[in-house]
């Protein structure tokens, strides 16, 4: 008895070898489908209508009860092997829980100016879409590099992060000095949100910012 158990565990361990196993099983499935189709093809080729071959009846008749038993046993096996996992799942399955946000307006504070070094970005979510409807609109706050900041006259700018081409999420790429959409390589100017190159045509909507005396940055809404 022990030997059998040992053999079985070894067999199972061998089956558990991952990569080769996956390949082998894929091969097995392909073989089953392929050989099955070939056998089925021969089977339908050898069917004859109204043939009623008495020899064939005799060939099978003496094993008839045996075949019925095999058929019933197979059906029972299938039902057991489908029910066993199902019952286990329904009995032992658990569900996750988590905090569900209330859906109210979140405080519009994004960050403190000390938290964002120049030439970098931070993502935040606005509770309003650019058209004023309530929603969850991803946006991006950029601390412009000094030369650009001097050009525009402000250090911090914020835009909608939703690409105006197909709605992917854009982010600030400091090495290219542009807002970049990874889906189809769209570029936006970080100083004014206008599309520079790629498929997008429309500019990114700008977010109105307010910086208080402590250096906290607030998103006031859309420009």
């Amino acid at each position, binding site marked *: 008895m022990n030997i059998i158990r040992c053999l079985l565990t070894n067999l199972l361990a061998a089956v558990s070898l991952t990569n080769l196993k996956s390949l082998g099983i894929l091969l097995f499935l392909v073989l089953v489908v392929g050989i099955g189709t070939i056998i089925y093809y021969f089977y339908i080729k*050898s*069917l*004859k209508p109204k043939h009623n071959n008495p020899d064939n009846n005799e060939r099978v008749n003496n094993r008839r009860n045996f*075949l019925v038993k095999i058929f019933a046993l197979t059906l029972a096996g299938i039902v057991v092997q*489908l029910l066993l996992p199902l019952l286990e799942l329904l009995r032992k399955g658990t569900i996750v829980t988590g905090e569900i946000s209330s859906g109210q307006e979140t405080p519009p504070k994004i960050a403190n100016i000390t938290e964002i070094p120049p030439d970098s970005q931070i993502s935040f979510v606005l509770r309003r879409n650019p058209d004023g409807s309530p929603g969850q609109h991803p946006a991006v706050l950029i601390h412009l590099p000094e030369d650009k900041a001097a050009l525009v006259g402000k250090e911090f700018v914020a835009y909608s992060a939703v690409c105006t081409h197909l709605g992917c999420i854009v982010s600030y790429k400091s090495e290219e000095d542009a807002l970049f959409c990874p889906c189809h390589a769209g570029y936006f100017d970080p100083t004014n949100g206008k599309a520079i190159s790629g498929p997008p045509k429309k500019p990114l909507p700008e977010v109105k910012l307010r910086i208080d005396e402590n250096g906290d940055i607030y998103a006031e809404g859309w420009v």
Partner: protein
Amino acid sequence: MQRAGSEESCIKKFVRWLIERTGASEFTKTIIPRHALHPMYSFGGLASLMFFLLAFTGIIQLMFYVPAFGEENIAYESVRHFTESVPYGFVVRGIHSYAATLMILLSMLHFLRVYFTGAYAKPRELTYVIGIVAGLLSIASAFLGYSLRMDHISVEAIRIGQFLVLQLPGGNWLYSLIFGSGSFDEVIPRFLALHIGVAGLLAIALLLHFYMIHAHHISPPYDGSEPEPVIPFYPNFLLTELAAAVVTIGTLMTLSAVFPPELGFKFVFGEELPVGQPEWYLMAMYALIKTGIDPVLAGLVIPSIGLLILVIMPWVDPLYSRHPMNRRIATTYGLIFVGEYIVLFLYGQLTPGEQIPLLNALLLTIAVALVLGYVGVRLTSKPIPPKKIQKQQSGNSPSYAVRVILKNVWWIACLLLVFALVLGGFGIMSHLSENYYDAALLFGISIILMGWSLFTAKVGLVDAKYLV
């Protein structure tokens, strides 16, 4: 104890009573013609088997899915938990996801068979149209379904969906109708409800489809020959279908144990994620959108026109012959449509995260259209006369092999069953030691073998007298 003189067992009597009282006795008289036994004719049936599997696994997943985004993407966490921690969760989700893909693939193959063999000819036009509607509904339901995972691919799919809706005339109105405010907290429950609702519509479309097939019967052979009835539907063909269903379920179970269903990166606001690619059946449309032409034109207008021509084809196509080589318009258009679909799919698949230059796409699609158009015209240049009725050859070809197999049929079935039982026994051992991956794998292979055992036993039991 059976009474002497009564040859029928009580089970047989009960089955006969059941068939009579459910009004299904018509099915027992149906005889399946030979051409309908061709594997090509099995795609539709297999696709509807996928639908039943999807409904069943979907109901189980509904018990564990949490349709909420919350603070930290609860929906994704619930899917991950179901896949990784719930016993056999990966099998259920795996069967659901593989069956969805296979259902769309099989529906497409079924469509190709119907289209190129002209099975939509009078009086089956509406069956064909409803079939196309069912195919579109299944794609819509699949799209809504894979958006529920809330990984990076789903989020991008939702975003593109929202964007396309906004571009439509009356977009804002439609947008709030479908997505509410558009925040994920509102999108997820809506998508879940719509996913199930669209699947319900699909069920109605399928029932209509089946009803019409039943009313008009299966189409005769496309080459103009007479259909040749071979075996009865009940029980011979029904049992073949049962065996095929069992083998399919076993295969899907094995597949999902070896290759658990994919789950992308968790989507959280403010984190950069890789660009997701849409599922393969939407890739051709996505490639069109990537060329930079107006998204509504690329994603809605052009595919709709392409499909509309397919829909009206039964009324355009000549009636005198159903052979694909006798139907120049249908065959040429079908070839071009399939070719463009495949080429655009490949182009989109090979350029992830890149734009497709409009000029390249135009040149490629025009080249494909010209080449396949030429092929289609050449193929249909010579009319093919209807096939003459074949005289039944006296059975001689595979008779020896069949005789040997028939003689040993009980043996083969028994051997398959023993193999399956041994594997199933190993499976139960793994199951008891809570090693669910191995258990699912062993159960899956065992179910495949049992399917073949069913088929073999059935050949011996009910098919013997129809074999040569």
